């Protein structure tokens, strides 16, 4: 090799080193310059993370960016709200890493299952402590969704929007089964499965066996996952009522009346494609499906009805998002103003047509007026329940999936599976 001049070598080394250093730096946007007193007299920017635009459906994001945020900014001169849309699947990880790096935004629209775990990390401001008007705001919302913000004696957020799962039926499958209405009870549900035999239509499909998936069946069957005080799962999850409910599902699965997607087969046709596609007769899902299907399957008109009722009635699961304030926020007062704004009729009602159900009790009837197709969801929410309010909600889902899957495959009895799951959930419960 010919020798390069020393100066050229030095230059090359310096450039490489500089590249290396820049490559290692975080590369993230630096936070906006902060004014320490948090007053609204100067120009401040509130950063707001959420997943309104999930799945590329821009309807909700458009309302937020073009209508709601400008309205708030007009009322609060000097305050700019910068909404950052993050895909739902990435949001939890981004919040986790941002917590570790102390780079959280001011406000987050968080899945209601995440609030206890981030409250436990100490990165959320307890709203019940810092808002003088807390009682008033808390009284206005549905108690079931308010409860999702409770952790260790304090409330760390306010409900923002809610949803629940109802039974969605393909009208063609109803016809094939010779029915004029979706099944309204467990018995009718099983009977519809028999009526569909030979049609090539699978009675039911779901994407897993986590709490979101199985709790509507368990509650409707008259059972629960723990006692009301969250002290034990053993003796509750493995009750006779739950054994009967899960056995009903397992029997349907063994008879190939439930798709293998329920045990986590990624190769099964997804529920959102299989229902309009005619593979599946029924699924349990939320109000957002309408907008997904209107784009991909125009002309598909699904039938919405309450979760089939069992011995416990028709009880579904509460979903949705809460709005939380992080301890990283340097503009707490302005951020609290924005949180108050999200609880107003203007904010809540603007998002109803996009499939976001209101959390304000007094707005329920108005919501049905604006969007009559949401009536089933609104009514279902009256009895819907919240999942376990513990920090390890994700672990509960993993346990239910891991223990119930062998029961569906016929490798263990349903009672044994529920006993195993209960024993593992016991360990997660606060003593």
């Amino acid at each position: 090799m010919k020798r390069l001049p020393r100066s050229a070598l030095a230059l090359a080394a310096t450039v490489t080193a500089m590249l290396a250093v820049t490559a290692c730096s975080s590369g993230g946007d630096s936070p906006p310059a902060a004014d320490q007193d948090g007053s609204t007299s100067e120009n401040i920017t509130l950063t707001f993370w959420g997943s309104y635009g999930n799945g590329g459906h821009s309807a909700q994001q458009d309302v937020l960016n073009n209508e709601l945020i400008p309205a708030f900014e007009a009322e609060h001169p000097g305050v700019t709200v910068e909404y950052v849309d993050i895909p739902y699947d990435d949001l939890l990880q981004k919040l986790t890493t941002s917590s570790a790096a102390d780079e959280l935004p001011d406000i987050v629209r968080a899945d209601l299952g995440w609030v206890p775990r981030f409250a436990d990390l100490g990165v959320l401001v307890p709203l019940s402590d810092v808002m003088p008007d807390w009682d008033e705001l808390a009284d206005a919302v549905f108690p079931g969704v308010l409860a999702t913000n409770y952790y260790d004696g304090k409330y760390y957020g306010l409900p923002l929007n809610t949803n629940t799962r109802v039974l969605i039926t393909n009208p063609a499958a109803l016809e094939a089964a010779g029915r004029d209405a979706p099944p309204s009870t467990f018995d009718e549900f099983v009977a519809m499965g028999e009526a569909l035999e030979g049609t090539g239509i699978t009675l039911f499909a779901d994407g897993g066996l986590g709490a979101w998936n199985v709790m509507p069946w368990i509650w409707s069957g008259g059972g629960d996952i723990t006692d009301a005080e969250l002290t034990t799962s053993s003796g509750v999850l493995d009750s006779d009522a739950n054994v009967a409910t899960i056995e009903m599902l397992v029997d349907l699965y063994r008879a190939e009346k439930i798709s293998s997607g329920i045990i986590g087969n990624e190769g099964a046709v997804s529920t959102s494609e299989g229902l309009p596609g005619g593979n599946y007769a029924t699924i349990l899902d939320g109000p957002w499906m309408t907008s997904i299907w209107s784009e991909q399957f125009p002309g598909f008109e699904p039938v919405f009805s309450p979760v089939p009722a069992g011995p416990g009635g028709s009880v579904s699961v509460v979903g949705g998002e809460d709005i939380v304030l992080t301890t990283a926020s340097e503009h707490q007062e302005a951020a609290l103003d924005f949180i108050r704004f999200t609880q107003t009729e203007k904010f809540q009602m603007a998002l109803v047509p996009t499939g976001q159900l209101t959390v304000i009790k007094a707005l329920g009837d108005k919501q049905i007026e604006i969007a009559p197709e949401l009536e089933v969801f609104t009514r279902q929410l009256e009895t819907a329940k919240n999942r376990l309010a513990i920090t390890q909600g994700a672990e509960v889902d993993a346990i239910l999936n891991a223990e119930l899957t062998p029961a569906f495959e016929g490798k263990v009895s349903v009672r044994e599976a529920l006993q195993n799951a209960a024993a593992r959930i016991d360990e997660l419960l606060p003593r």
Partner: protein
Amino acid sequence: MTLQDTKVREAASHEAASRPRRRRVPLTPYLFLAPGLALFAVCVLYPITQAVRMSFYDWKIVASATSEFLGLDNYARALEDPQFWVALGNTGFYAVATLVPQVVLGLAVALLLHKRSPAQPLYRVLYYLPVVTSWVVVSLLFRFLFADAGLVNFALSEVVPVTDGQISWLADRWTGMVAISALGVWKGIGWSMMIFLAALQGVPTSLLEAATVDGASRWQRFRAVTLPAIRAALGFVTIMLVIGSFNVFISVYLMTGGGPAGRTDVLLTYMYHQAFGNLDFGYGSAIAVILTAIVLVLSLVQLRLFRDRDAGQVP
């Protein structure tokens, strides 16, 4: 190497003879090494030491919270965790199931492409294309191929009727691992082919010709001349493939998500689930450290096995 060394030594002795002084340490190699080393220290070494440290704690991700020191508890927990053993077993399965076909098929393709042909560059590109294609894209592609109503089931029932076409590939542990391994093999053959192709250029033609003159058959020439000559490449490919297979993550995460019920989890997906799903970074780090130890031991064993005993005899 040797030649250069001698020259350097000659020059040094010459200098020493004419002007006695301390031997100069050449700066140039260190300048070249510095950027890489700096990058390695900041982006690899430092995170590794942090991960090892985390593995001894019930690590809290927020800096203000105090993490409890657990000693070796996280490691003991892994050894008693049945899911850890499932993940380790799957990783081992993947390593074996992808290593052998990648070496055998990669070498076979390289031997075919070694023959001079005008279409050779085209084939080289075609075989290498999967290597440079995004893991995410091909993982999703393979998930569709192995779906219940996917092309694989269709091919195995309609085109070559060997099954009833009703296999739920991704719904069971071993069929799921076969599907994931199939992707690994398809994506990796091009890489091993490239290394072998380069190594084949170095097989001495004179020896091959001599063997032909001696009446050696094609197979004998391959066994006695080609194979020993590419022994170093064979060792390199094997070691790199084993390391790579223990690092499998994206394809598993996207094709099965470790499902159903964690039965197709590999070590990295399980580690990811523990760290980012359950925020149990201490346990996740312990799994990562165990993985590193396994890979290190395996690599050392292989290095020993492939040590070139005939070094110096084959130019």
